[in-house]
C-alpha cells in the first residue's frame, strides 16, 4: 500500500467504516461527492478564494529567533495557523466541507467541538456561505471554554451542551452521530478532525494538507524536522502528509496530562490499544473489556480517547514518532513562547512547542525545526490563570 492512499477506506488495519446501517447511504453520497470536487477545478478555485480572502491564507512561516536562542540549538520556525480567521487551523477544513455541503444541497450543518475552535470555525464558514449550523459540545468543555460558546452564539450557531458520558469531545461526537442518524436526509455532518468513518479521515487530511504544502514552499525545500500536536490529529496530518516521502523527521505530540503513569492523560498512541470507536478502527484508551476510558488534558482540544486512523498507521509503520507532553510542561512552553516571542499559543499547540524546545538543543544550529502553531491561546487564558494560581510557578 502506498502511504496515504487508503484501500477500501483503510490505512493498513486502521480506519474503515464501522457505522450504523442508516448512515451508509449518507457516507456513500459523501464519498462520491468528495471524489467529484477533488478534481473539480471550479470547486478548488472557489475554496482557494475563500482560503485566501476570508481565512487569510497563506499563513506566515516565522523564524522564532528568540525561542531558538532560548532553546539553544536547531532553528525553530513557527507555521502561524494561529493567525487564521477564527484563530486556528480548523477553518481550512470547515470552509472545504461547508462548500462541499452546499454543493450537495444540504440544508443543515451539524458539528462536534472540543475546545470550541472547530465549532467556531464551523459557525464562521456556515455564516459566510449562508448555511445554518448546530454544534454539539461536551458540557464540561462548555464550562471551560465559555468564550467560544459565546462566540458561536454570536455567530448564530446553536450550541447543544452534551451531558452524557465524560461530557467532553468523545461524547459530543456520539451525540452528533445520533443527530445525523435521525436527520440523515437533510443534514451534513461536518467532522472537525481526521477521525470517524471513511472518507472523513482522508477528506479532513486533504483539506488540512495546505499547511504542509505551504511549509514546503516557504522553506524552499523541506525542513529537517516537523512537529505538531495530536488529539484527533488534523493539524498534524495536514502538516505531515505533503512531506510523507521526503525523508523529514516527523513528530506528533500527544497530551500526557498529569503523566502517562497516572492514567490521567489523552496519549492514545503512546498508551492505547487497537479498537473500534466512532466508525473507525484505531488506537484507543480503553479498559480490558473495551470500555472507553475517560481522558484528561489541560487542553480540551486534545482531550479525546481515540486518534485519526492514519496516525495509527504511521505509528505502526514507523514513519512518524509520537511523543507526549504533560500539562505542566505545556504551561511552561505556553509561558516561554508568550514571553520570548510575544505569541500566545493555544494549549494544544503548546504541546508541540514544548517538544520542540526539548529537542532543539540536541540538534545542530544548521538544522531546522518547523512547529505547526495550530491555534492562538486567547481561549485558554482563564485556564492558564487558574493553573498558575493553583500551582505557584516562578516566572522566568
Amino acid at each position, binding site marked *: 500500500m502506498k502511504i496515504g492512499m487508503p484501500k477500501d477506506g483503510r490505512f493498513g488495519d486502521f480506519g474503515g467504516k*464501522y457505522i450504523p*446501517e*442508516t448512515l451508509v447511504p449518507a457516507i456513500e453520497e459523501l464519498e462520491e461527492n468528495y471524489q467529484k470536487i477533488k478534481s473539480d477545478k471550479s470547486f478548488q478555485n472557489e475554496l482557494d478564494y475563500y482560503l485566501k480572502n476570508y481565512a487569510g491564507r497563506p499563513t506566515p512561516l516565522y523564524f522564532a529567533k528568540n525561542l531558538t536562542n532560548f532553546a539553544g540549538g536547531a532553528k525553530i520556525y513557527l507555521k502561524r495557523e494561529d493567525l487564521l480567521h477564527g484563530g486556528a487551523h480548523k477553518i481550512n477544513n470547515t470552509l472545504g466541507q461547508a462548500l462541499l455541503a452546499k454543493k450537495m444541497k444540504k440544508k443543515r450543518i451539524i458539528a462536534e467541538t472540543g475546545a470550541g475552535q472547530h465549532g467556531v470555525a464551523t459557525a464562521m464558514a456556515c455564516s459566510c456561505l449562508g448555511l445554518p449550523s448546530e454544534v454539539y459540545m461536551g458540557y464540561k468543555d462548555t464550562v471551560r471554554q465559555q468564550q467560544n460558546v459565546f462566540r458561536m452564539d454570536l455567530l448564530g450557531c446553536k450550541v447543544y451542551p452534551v451531558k452524557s*458520558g465524560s461530557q467532553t469531545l468523545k461524547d459530543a461526537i456520539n451525540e452528533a*452521530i445520533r443527530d445525523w442518524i435521525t436527520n440523515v436526509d437533510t443534514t451534513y455532518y461536518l467532522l472537525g478532525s481526521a477521525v470517524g468513518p471513511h472518507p472523513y479521515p482522508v477528506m479532513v487530511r486533504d483539506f488540512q494538507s495546505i499547511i504542509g504544502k505551504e511549509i514546503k514552499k516557504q522553506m524552499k525545500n523541506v525542513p529537517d524536522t516537523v512537529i505538531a500536536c495530536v488529539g484527533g490529529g488534523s493539524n498534524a496530518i495536514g502538516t505531515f502528509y505533503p512531506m510523507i516521502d521526503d525523508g523529514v523527521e516527523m513528530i506528533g505530540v500527544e497530551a500526557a496530562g498529569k503523566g502517562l503513569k497516572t492514567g490521567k492523560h489523552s496519549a492514545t498512541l503512546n498508551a492505547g490499544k487497537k479498537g473500534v470507536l466512532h466508525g473507525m478502527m484505531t488506537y484507543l484508551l480503553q479498559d480490558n*473489556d473495551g470500555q472507553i476510558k475517560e481522558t484528561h488534558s489541560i487542553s480540551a482540544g486534545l482531550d479525546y480517547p481515540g486518534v485519526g486512523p492514519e496516525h495509527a498507521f504511521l505509528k505502526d509503520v514507523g514513519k512518524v514518532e509520537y511523543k507526549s507532553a504533560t500539562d505542566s510542561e505545556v504551561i511552561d512552553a505556553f509561558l516561554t513562547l508568550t514571553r520570548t516571542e510575544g505569541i500566545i499559543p493555544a494549549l494544544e499547540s503548546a504541546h508541540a512547542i514544548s517538544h520542540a524546545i526539548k529537542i532543539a538543543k540536541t540538534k545542530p544550529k544548521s538544522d531546522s525545526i518547523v512547529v505547526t502553531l495550530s491555534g492562538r491561546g486567547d481561549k485558554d487564558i482563564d485556564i492558564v490563570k487558574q493553573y498558575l494560581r493553583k500551582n505557584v510557578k516562578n516566572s522566568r
Partner: protein
Amino acid sequence: MSKIQDKFKELKSKNEKALISYIMTGFPNENATLSIVRGLVKGGADILELGFPFSDPIADGPVIQNASTVSLNKGAKIEKFFKIVKKIRKETDIPLVLMTYTNVLYTHGYSAFMLKAKSAGIDGLILPDMSIEESKEYLKSAKKNNLDTIFLVSPNTKNDRLKKIAKASTGFLYLVAVFGTTGVQTKIHKYTIDAIKNAKKVVNRKLPLGIGFGVSTPVDVKKYVSAGVDAVIVGSANLKIIENTSSSKLQNKITEYTKKLKRSTRI
C-alpha cells in the same frame, strides 16, 4: 439449525410471530436481571435480547444510554455477563441474543469472545456498528462457533445492499423502524411499512424479518405484524417499566406487559 431458527419454525407452525424482548443486563442491578428475565419468559417472550453495555452507544437513545451507564457504574464486566447468561440458561431454553457494540468483541478477539459466549448459552449476536464491509473476521468466527449473526438494515438501505446484508445474516434480519436511535416512538411511519414490504420481497422468505427501534405498544405490534414482519423487538419500553417500577412489583409488571405484547403477535 440454530435455536433461533428452530424457534421461528415452531412459531410458524403455530401461526404466531416472534416477540423479542430486549433488556440491558445489570440494569438497574445484577440481581434484578434474573428476576426480569423470569418475568419476560413467563409473559411469553419468544427470544431474549440481552444488552451488554458499551461506554459509547451511538445507535442508542436516552433510555438505553442511561441503562448502559447505570450498568457500567455498577461494575458490568463481560465475565460477569457470561455468568448471568449461564444462570439464565439453566432455567430456560429460550434463544438468547447478545446485543452490544463491535469494540467489546474486538477487544477480546472475535473468536475467543464467541467461544465463551457460545458456551455460556448465547445463540446469536447483534452489533449495530458492524457493517458488512468490516465483517469478514467477525463472520468467520461466528460461523466457527455456530452463532447467528443478525445484521441491521434501515429503511434507506438500497435493494442490492439489502440482498448482501441478508446473505451475511442468519437467525433473522433486523429492520430498523425509524431514522433515529433506539427509543419509544409515538407514531408508525408510512416509510416503515413500505420498508417492511420491500424487505420481505427482496429477502424472499429466506430469512425471518424482525422490526425494532421504537416498538412499544400492543397496537404497534399488531400493525407491524399485519404489515408482514416475522418478529417484533421491544426494548426501550421494557427499560422504561424497569425504571419506573419498584423491585417487588417488577417481575409481575413485566410479565403482564409482555403478555399483552405477545397476544398481538398471534394472527
